[in-house]
Every structure is written in structure tokens, then in C-alpha cells.
């Protein structure tokens, strides 16, 4: 367990969790922008914009950390994934580019109703494509259909069948619902207006149920779609208590939303998401790309891993307080009236 590559794998898993909890919620903001409805649609959009603007670029860097660690520490796996999943990754990149740019363009383009709405649509649609494709990629990696040569990373593939299947898309939709849930719960605390809070409460309740459904669907599909993960999820000793814990937190979170204990919900929902990703991570361990590539057989030598870990530690010392300050400045206070763009 003390092999350096497992530490790196752990850092990648944590980065993925943080990315989901922060960047994932930003995508969720885009989803709720699309489904902004009723008399308060405009206000809903405004809160979303206001919540995202200062932080989305920083949140987005977690994804880059994951990619970089993957190609530094497990280059063969990076080559394999880049080859076999070229198409969903390219679609995800389109989503990333359009999401980020549409969001900024909307702020700086002319403020007429039609222009604003056009950018909003693009922002929202890209916010939906991106997490689905991220989930599809993770689902395909777990599915056991990517047979790579351990030495070279060369993979026999038709570039389509390993991801264009039921299970990866179920994971894609699952990811989408998690993003939507996180965003809805966070947004209840971004406003003091009780009516708007009710809007997001309702959205949170609906998505919490969708998350439950998609969790079940993914589990059922994994029997066919990702047999080795299913084994990890279903059979080992820790799996039953772990599922119970995740389920309990999920129900507690729904209760908190129902009872309008928003600060509590804001803690519980991220815990729920964290547990889900942890569960998946442990079920897939020690495989990085099932069924051939493991963390050990694709890891590079310690002479490379050691300095990377040192950089990670130094980075954490610098980045964590900086993030803390960023959130303290923009999320800690109530004076939301001040000028947003300077």
C-alpha cells in the first residue's frame, strides 16, 4: 500500500472528488440556467452567474491536475485512454471550450435580452454535454472493454464500441444528476430571497431522487456493462456497510433539504457525492483501465514519482490556503449587492 504510485492514485481520486464538488457544481449551475423557469427565471440566472463568475476558472484547474498526473505517472494508461476514447473526450473538450467562453461572452456582450439568452443557451447546453461525456469516459474505462497492451499502451479498438454502450451512458447521466444536485443545494445558500430558495429547494429534491434512480440503474447495468466493478461493488466485505452508509447520508440529505436545513444539506450532499466516488474508486482498484492496466503495471519509476509527490505536497501548502481565501472572499459574506465586474 505504500508504493508511491498508490499515493499518486489517491491524489488523483481526491482531485476528481474536489473537481466534482466544485467544477461539477459549476456545470450544475449551467443546467439550472437552462431550466430557469417561471416569474423568477431571470433572478435565478443572475444568482447562478454571480455564484460562478469568480471561481469557475480556479475550480476547472482540478481537471488539468488529473490529466497531468495521469500522463506523468501512468503514461501508458493516458495513451490508451486518449486512443480508445478519442471521440467522447473530443466532445467533452468542445463542451469545455463552449461552456467557459459562452459564460464570459455573456457577461461582456451587449446586454439585450436576445443576445443574453443566446449565450445562456450555449452555456447551458455545453454544461450538459461536458459532464455526460466525462461520465461516459469514466464508465468506459471501468467497463472492461478496452484491452490494451501493457508495454506500449497500444490498444485494439474500433474507437466506438467501448464507450457507445448503455453502461457508460448511464454513468454519464448519473454524473449529470450529481452535478445538478450539488448546484441546486449550493444555490439555496447563494440568495436570501425565500422564494428563490424554494425554487432551488424543489430542484434539489427532484434531482436527489434522480440521483437515487441513476445509482440503482448504474448498479443494475454494471452486471453486464462492467463486471469487474460489479464484483468490487457487490462482493467484498466492505461493500455492504459502505452502501448502507452512502444510502443513509443520501436519505439524511433529502430530509435536510425537505426541512429547509440548507447549511446541513450543503454539508451532507458533498459527503454523499464523495462517498459515491470513493466507492467507485475502491471497486475499480487496482485497475486504472480495466481489464489489463493496473496502477502498478503502468506506473513509471520512483525517480519520476517522488518529485511529483513533492510538488503535490508543496502545491497543497500553497493552494489550499489560497482557495480558502478565495472562497472566504466570495462565499463567506452576505453583501451580494456589490458590483460584480468591477
Amino acid at each position, binding site marked *: 500500500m505504500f508504493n508511491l504510485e498508490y499515493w499518486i492514485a489517491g491524489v488523483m481520486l481526491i482531485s476528481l472528488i474536489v473537481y466534482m464538488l466544485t467544477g461539477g457544481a459549476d456545470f450544475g449551475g449551467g443546467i439550472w440556467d437552462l431550466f430557469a423557469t417561471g416569474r423568477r427565471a431571470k433572478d435565478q440566472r443572475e444568482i447562478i452567474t454571480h455564484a460562478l463568475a469568480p471561481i469557475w*476558472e480556479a475550480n476547472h484547474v482540478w481537471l488539468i491536475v488529473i490529466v497531468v498526473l495521469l500522463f506523468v505517472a501512468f503514461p*501508458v494508461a493516458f495513451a490508451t485512454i486518449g486512443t480508445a476514447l478519442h471521440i467522447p*473526450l473530443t466532445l467533452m*473538450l468542445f463542451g469545455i471550450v463552449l461552456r*467557459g467562453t459562452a459564460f464570459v461572452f455573456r457577461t461582456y456582450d*451587449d446586454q439585450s435580452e436576445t443576445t443574453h439568452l443566446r449565450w445562456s443557451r450555449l452555456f447551458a447546453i455545453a454544461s450538459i454535454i461536458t459532464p455526460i461525456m466525462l461520465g461516459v469516459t469514466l464508465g468506459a474505462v471501468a467497463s472492461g472493454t478496452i484491452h490494451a497492451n501493457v508495454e506500449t499502451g497500444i490498444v485494439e479498438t474500433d474507437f466506438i464500441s467501448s464507450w457507445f454502450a448503455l453502461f457508460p451512458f448511464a454513468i454519464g447521466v448519473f454524473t449529470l444528476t450529481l452535478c445538478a444536485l450539488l448546484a441546486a443545494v449550493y444555490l439555496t445558500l447563494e440568495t436570501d430571497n425565500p422564494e428563490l430558495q424554494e425554487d432551488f429547494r424543489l430542484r434539489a429534491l427532484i434531482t436527489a431522487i434522480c440521483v437515487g434512480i441513476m445509482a440503482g440503474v448504474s448498479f443494475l447495468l454494471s452486471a453486464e456493462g462492467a463486471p469487474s466493478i460489479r464484483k468490487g461493488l457487490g462482493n467484498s466485505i466492505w461493500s455492504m456497510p459502505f452502501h448502507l452508509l452512502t444510502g443513509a447520508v443520501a436519505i439524511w440529505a433529502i430530509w435536510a433539504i425537505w426541512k429547509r436545513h440548507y447549511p446541513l444539506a450543503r454539508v451532507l450532499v458533498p459527503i454523499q457525492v464523495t462517498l459515491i466516488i470513493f466507492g467507485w474508486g475502491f471497486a475499480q482498484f487496482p485497475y486504472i483501465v480495466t481489464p489489463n492496466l493496473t496502477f502498478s503495471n503502468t506506473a513509471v519509476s520512483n525517480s519520476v514519482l517522488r518529485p511529483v509527490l513533492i510538488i503535490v505536497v508543496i502545491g497543497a501548502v500553497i493552494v489550499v490556503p489560497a482557495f480558502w481565501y478565495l472562497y472566504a472572499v466570495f462565499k463567506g459574506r452576505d453583501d451580494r449587492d456589490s458590483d460584480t465586474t*468591477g
Partner: protein
Amino acid sequence: MENLLAARAQMAMSLAFHIIFASIGIAMPLLMVIAEGLWLKTKDETYLTLAKRWSKGTAIMFAVGAVSGTVLSFELGLLWPTFMAYAGPIIGMPFSLEGLAFFIEAIFLGIYLYGWNRVPKTVHWFAGMMVLLGGMLSGIFVVTANAWMNTPTGFQIEAGKAINIDPVAAMLNPSSFSQALHMTIAAFLAVGFAVAGIHAYFLRRDPHNAFHRKAFAIALSVGGFFAILQPISGDISAKRLAKHQPVKLAAMEAQWETERGAPIRIGGIPDEDNEVTRYAIEIPKALSFLTHFDINAEIKGLKEFPPEDRPPVAIVHYAFQIMVGCGFVMIIAGIIGGWLTWRRKGLPINSWYLRFITFCTPLGFIAIEAGWTVTEVGRQPWVIYNIMRTADAVTPMPHLIVPFIGFTVLYIFLSIIVVILLRRQIFIYE
């Protein structure tokens, strides 16, 4: 289109696009912290207005820079999996450090752009400094990765695999210092002139506008200062090429024969079939002198190398001419600017000079694109110089023309929007 060609085209297009926004991400923070620092010092509100308006344009550029950079980090695996399986761990060190620099940059950028009314003034200015630091470090780290492709060090090869990897030695390869220096200066220089050019345009209409005068003074000082430094760092690069990549240097100068006392060629038409360069203006012995400080030093010609190891000569030669040409125009602009300032004891706003600076607006960026073409095309046919050929690095994925066209259309669309939005930012107040 052949698959390899499509992959190269997509990589080149993505990088050519990203580098513009990346350079702005490196250099605009400098202009902003200067303006804001002057505001803190003089309490002149014009400087504050300036910093705020610059920061709005920068917000747009940063977003495009961040997303296009993300595309690049994936494209390394999407287009060049074999290259990355081999090189990923060796050049991983700068990329990991770069990730850290991105965090610093993006976090403090959020505070800088949206925190005008939320954090104390000095903290705000400090955030600007951190954005500047993060941007410069991002650029430096990624360029050392590229430098490694030119002069790969820090590992040994056994049975086609890299062993005994020393990531620090790889990062500090012989090209790192000169390339990182040259690139960082290029970013300040290009952005300085571009911004000065825009404000010069308005000063011609309204020479007494305090806002544009201050903006022009800051931007031109930055641009002019770095313009004068740039040929020195370019010369360091050329000396390093003479030592480590003679075939690239020969292509840049369209030098076919190995020769003592080689000239510098201006213009000319390299004829790759007959292996001669015609109609060039030659400055005798200058190349030997500049690369070795010895007018009779030997320069290797292209004929020393087998044809399959030579880069496309004409592209490299012309690109080099364009870069140096743009550089010289800007040096002249910088020197005249300094001289006029000294003569007038004030801002050089003679109308012909303002017109000249307006003309210089795009030159720095043209030079950056040309310079990268020299570096990258000049390294061909290798992706890792003398170790791995580009043709062996490409993905087996078929129909790469499709993502190439897709990204091209996407980036053209983004470019158009960025231009429209910047025009609006610039003209809205006029």
C-alpha cells in the same frame, strides 16, 4: 488529407490559437499592476479606471486562454499517444509545476477581477502580482517541456524505452533557459506594442485625453523596453542552435553548404530540389560571427544531413525572416520613442509616430507565431529531436480531419466573437 497531416494541422492550429491568449495572460497582469500601483502611489483616479478597463478585456482573454489550454493538454494524448507514453514521465515535472502555477493564477485572478470592492486595496494589488507570477511561471514551465523536445536530456534509452529518468535534468535541458527567456520577453513585447497601438489610435483623434495618454505611456514603455532586450535573447537561442540543432539553424538561414565565414541571408528563395538559395541579400560572415563570435567559424550546411532528416527549408527560412523583421521594426519603434521622449521631455505623441505605433499593433503576435513555426517546423521530421519521428508518434485514430475541421471552425468562431467583444469594450466608452 493524410492522417498525420491532419494531426499536425490540428496541433499547430490549437497551439497557434492558445499562444495568443497565453501571451496576453502573461503580460496583461504586468500592465494592470503598473497602472494600479501608480494609482496607489499618486491617488490619480485615471490610473484606477485604466486598471479596471484593462482587467475587463483581460477577463475575456483569460477565459479563452484557459479553455484552449485545456484542449491542448488533452490533445497531447488524443493526437500523440505514442509520444506521450514515451515522454510523459520525462517532461512531467514542468507540467506538474505548471499545474501549480495555474492554480495560483486562476485563484488570484478571481480575486483580482471580482474583488475590487471586497478586499483591501493592497491585497488587491498583491493578487495582481500573484496573477503575473502565475502567468509567467506557466509560460516558463511549458516552454521548458517544449525545449526538451528540441534537446532531450535526463534519461537513457534501452531497448526503445526510456530508463533512468531524471526529471530535473530533463527540465533543465540546454534549450530551457534560452527558450523560456525569449518567450517571456516575446509575450511582454507583443502585448506592450499591441496595447500601445490601440491607445495610439485614439490619441491621434484626441491627443489630450488623459486616460489614453497614461495607457500609451505604460504600454509603450513596457513594449519598447522588451523590444530592445529581445535580439539579445534571440542571439542566445541562435548560439544554442549552432551547438545543438545545426540543421535547424541551417534551415533558418537557408544555408546549403558547410562554410567558414557564413553570411546572414535576408530574403531569397530556397530551392529544395536543386539545393541552392537564390536572390538573397547576404551580409558576409555575419552568421559565423553572431553564433561563434568568430567571423571565420564553420557553419554546417543542410547538405551535411541526409534529405530525410531535413526540415522543410523554405517555411523555416521565411518564418525566421518574418520574426526578425517584425522584431527590428519594433526595436526601431522603441528607440525612436525613447529619443522623442527625451527630446520633447514628454510623451512622444507626434502624429507620424502615433501612426507608426498603430501600425505596430499586430507585429509582436505575428513574430510569436513565426517564431514558433521556426522552432516546431525546424525540428521536423522529429517530434523528439533525433529520438522519435513525428510520423511514429501519431494516433491510429482514423478520420482525424473531422476533429481538425471541428476545432478550426470552433476557434474561428471564438476569434470573431473575441474581436467583436473587445471592440465593444474599447469603443463603448468613446
